[in-house]
């Protein structure tokens, strides 16, 4: 469904999400009208889902980010569903992922500082349902974060 022009346009858009359609067209070697039509079609087809602003939580005072890797007690039916809906109620949780592997679920948690994190962890995380085991990975630094697809 996608041809080389589509891939080129998406690749340049990924490397410079603020680029105008004219700039993308120029780099992909097509006319602006073609680029506009292609991007419009990719959006229609749901391939290009949008361009989002990336929020720097540190600039908002959230200096601590912890990845919580959770193993659930799977003898409980609905363990996943109940855990996920409870985790949605915790404002400090910014990401919920489920996995196939040793880890069942991962929550990405923000906090202002270690004292705040300790409080969130004790009062809001450890009280979540069906936790069997929990492991914490604290973010030291983001080495690469573009999340670009290798098109």
């Amino acid at each position, binding site marked *: 469904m996608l041809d080389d022009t589509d891939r080129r346009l998406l690749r340049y858009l990924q490397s410079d999400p603020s680029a105008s359609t004219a700039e993308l067209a120029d780099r992909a070697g097509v006319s602006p009208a073609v680029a506009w039509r292609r991007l419009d079609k990719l959006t229609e087809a749901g391939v290009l889902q*949008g361009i989002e602003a990336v929020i720097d939580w540190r600039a908002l005072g959230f200096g601590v980010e912890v990845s919580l890797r959770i193993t659930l007690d799977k003898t409980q039916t609905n363990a996943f569903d109940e855990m996920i809906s409870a985790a949605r109620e915790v404002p400090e949780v910014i990401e919920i*992922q489920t996995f196939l*592997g040793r880890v069942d679920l991962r929550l990405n948690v923000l906090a202002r500082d270690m004292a705040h994190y300790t409080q969130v962890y004790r009062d809001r995380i450890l009280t979540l349902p069906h936790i069997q085991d929990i492991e914490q990975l604290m973010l030291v630094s983001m080495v690469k974060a573009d999340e670009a697809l290798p098109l």
Partner: protein
Amino acid sequence: MSLDLDDIDRAVLRELARDARQPASALGRKLGLSQPAAWRRIKRLEDANVISGRRVRLDATTLGFGVTVFLGVKLATKGRTSVADFERAITAIPEVQVVQHVLGAYDYRLRVVARDLSDFERVLRRRIMTLPGVGEVEANVLLTEEQRPGPLG
């Protein structure tokens, strides 16, 4: 230094995190602000680096990337040079989308995208396991993911 946000700022950020390209006029209409007022809010957030950039959201599956795997990597040897070498080499692999240096049971957390499981195995064996200093590796295949508004909500 952190910026104090009011409810309108938080709403502006939530909107931009959804669609960064909407013009200040459209954003203003949604939030009951004039175009200049919306523009000033956005500008203030950008100037304070609260908005650190933009990211394109693509449907990975339609583009042929059916598998996303998270890897926990432990380095076998830790020294300033081995860390720098590892970071340089791992960020150069196109399938590796995210590299986080972490503290805990692992040293690094990687997000790796691949066409399918055998493609992932190829990336893991030929590109990642062969890097200098790589010790224990744990892989978990992503099933679902959901972004939350976080403290903006």
